[in-house]
């Protein structure tokens, strides 16, 4: 038996990174979630005590946990369809030409994805400030009252999601653009000869052929929004009244600000199960789709 080793060597770096930073932490979180580990326990392991399922029981009874879970659901419902629709539309428009202007536009649309989140939050924080912000200033010039973009318990979800959509589209536009380039020109030309309209071509040819790109974007976007963290963390710190606290931010606050690692680990496992479940459903849906 002489199995060539080269393939294993090539996948090893990715595998090791996945194991060390993906699988290992989840395996560690499992035992930690059954303990009362906190900062003191971290310094001296003999002070950690087994807590059974107490952490999970407390999670279920914790209003803040349910609020964060609900917020995350709302964020995902707002964000995922918007990101997919906006990136697809932008990619279609950018795909129309290859001239210098469109190439510049492509870079322009990608810029938010690579801009540092702290700079993004500072600028958006100023734009959306209730009293001193540009957006409310513009509203006032047309006679509209100021809105509390980051201060109203309902509006804040939309504001934070808006910033995240603005940041999240760049990468997906590139994925859609790359996929659009793989569509054989003959199909579109044949449809044109048959007299198909632009919209008809998109619905009947482009979208079906981009099915895999859509699946990829949908899966990664859903996961990203279920792990939503950066924007509320830097824009609102989860406020006001916890109305923009996502589940990841909640876990971060419990784990790293309050030092309750056991409790945060329990929450992490719940989040992991939710993400795994949603992703499995998505992949399964795709399989039925392909069998049809």
């Amino acid at each position, binding site marked *: 038996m002489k199995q060539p080793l080269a393939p294993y060597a090539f996948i*090893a770096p990715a595998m090791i990174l996945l194991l060390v930073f993906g699988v290992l932490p989840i395996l560690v979180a499992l035992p930690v979630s059954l303990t009362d580990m906190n900062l003191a326990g971290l310094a001296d392991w003999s002070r950690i005590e087994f807590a059974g399922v107490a952490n999970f029981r407390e999670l279920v009874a914790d209003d803040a946990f349910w609020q964060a879970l609900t917020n995350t659901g709302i964020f995902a419902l707002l964000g995922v369809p918007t990101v997919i629709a906006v990136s697809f539309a932008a990619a279609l428009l950018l795909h129309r030409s290859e001239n210098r202007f469109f190439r510049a536009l492509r870079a322009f649309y990608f810029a938010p994805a690579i801009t540092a989140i702290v700079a993004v939050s500072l600028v958006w924080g100023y734009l959306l400030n209730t*009293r*001193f912000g540009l957006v409310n200033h513009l509203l006032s010039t047309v006679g509209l009252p100021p809105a509390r973009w980051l201060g109203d318990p309902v509006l804040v979800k939309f504001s934070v999601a808006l910033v995240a959509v603005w940041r999240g589209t760049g990468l997906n536009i590139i994925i859609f653009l790359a996929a659009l380039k793989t569509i054989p020109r003959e199909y579109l030309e044949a449809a044109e000869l048959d007299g198909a309209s632009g919209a008809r071509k998109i619905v009947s040819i482009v979208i079906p052929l981009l099915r895999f790109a859509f699946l990829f974007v949908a899966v990664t976007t859903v996961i990203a929004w279920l792990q939503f963290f950066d924007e509320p963390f830097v824009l609102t710190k989860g406020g006001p*009244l916890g109305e923009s606290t996502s589940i990841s931010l909640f876990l971060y606050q419990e784990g790293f600000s309050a030092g309750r690692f056991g409790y945060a680990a329990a929450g992490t496992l719940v989040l992991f199960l939710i993400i795994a479940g949603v992703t499995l459903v998505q992949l399964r849906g795709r399989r039925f789709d392909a069998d049809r």
Partner: protein
Amino acid sequence: MRRPGLALAALLLAACSLVLAACSGTAPAGGTPGELTVWIMGDSSARFEQLVRPFVDRTGIRVDPVPVPWDSVDQKFTTAVASGDGPDALQIGLSKLRTFADSGALLTLDDRTLREHPGLAAANFLDGVSPGGDPVSVPWVADTRVLFYRRDILTGQGLDEPPRTWDEVRAYARILAGRGGGGYGFHIPQWDSALPVIMTWTMGGRIVDDAGRVDFDTPEFHRAADLYLGFHADRSVPADPDFDQIQGFVSGATPMLVSGPYLAGEVASAAPELDGKWSVAPIPGDATHTSLLAGSNLGVWRSSGNRDAALRLLDYLSQPRTQLTWYELDGQLPTAKAALNDPELTADPLVSVYARQLRDARPLPPVPNWDGETGKALLDALNSVVLTGANRDTALQGLYAATGGTSVN
């Protein structure tokens, strides 16, 4: 074909085990002997280097200050505790003291440890800075809250003296808000959990009962809550959570607010043209004028290899002379009584108000997690009434339920 593959695999395996070893290995705590790593909060580390230069010259102990942003202190501390690789000495915000002390990562500074460092004896410092039990830290800089007011705007409305009671503040705020043009009278920052506590203290109440349990269900707190919500009912304070404190004061939109000495520095640098048009006054109050005692302490990392040098540095930093220099350099108030009474310091009218206020100031109750739990519950209850129009009594019942089991012991 096989050879390079095998070599590559071996190389990767070696690399991996190296990575894993780096993760699990415990680095020896403390730096090289003769060099102290010191965590300094905020952006003061460059000035700190200047402060300790005489100490470095005299003792030959090098000091390496590491700036730690206030926002990331929890993560940084957690990482240091987890890896066992901390600094030699560190600045600890009073609100973090309980957490840091509970972690067991700090050296206990009992009388025996401090025998050779008489400068660090608790009697030298302001009362209340050192918590009970086995101390793990010594006082370093003090901070308090006073009333800031725009003298020009107040006198423009015929209000010649700063308000002394909360009723006066409320009456003033109504008059000032009546100026129109989007102006308000007072500012209640919705992130400031100390303000409702100060209001309770100045009503003559406490938020911790004799048994050490947090108790908000007292007549004094009810009055404080009515005061807090009353400002909003009067519409004399902005209800935006993102209202900028400094811009509000400088622009005159909120001509009165409660804040600490750091705000004086911010206002002076943001609007030097306002010099002389604003001032500070002791915290208003009905029964007392008790304000918040905040600030930072200094501690020594338990597993530091440089304990003695670290203690010598702490001793140097606790000297009244050093603390006065630090006020000049960084604008942070001393904790040493001798320094606070220094005529050079109190010649500044602002500082004389701070120094007087510091004599009547209390720290927040040392509950396990003030910022994340008790203080947050307090703010959420009050602000839910402000932002969502929730029922006051229901919100307060929720607060009692959320904080009922919390104790300072």
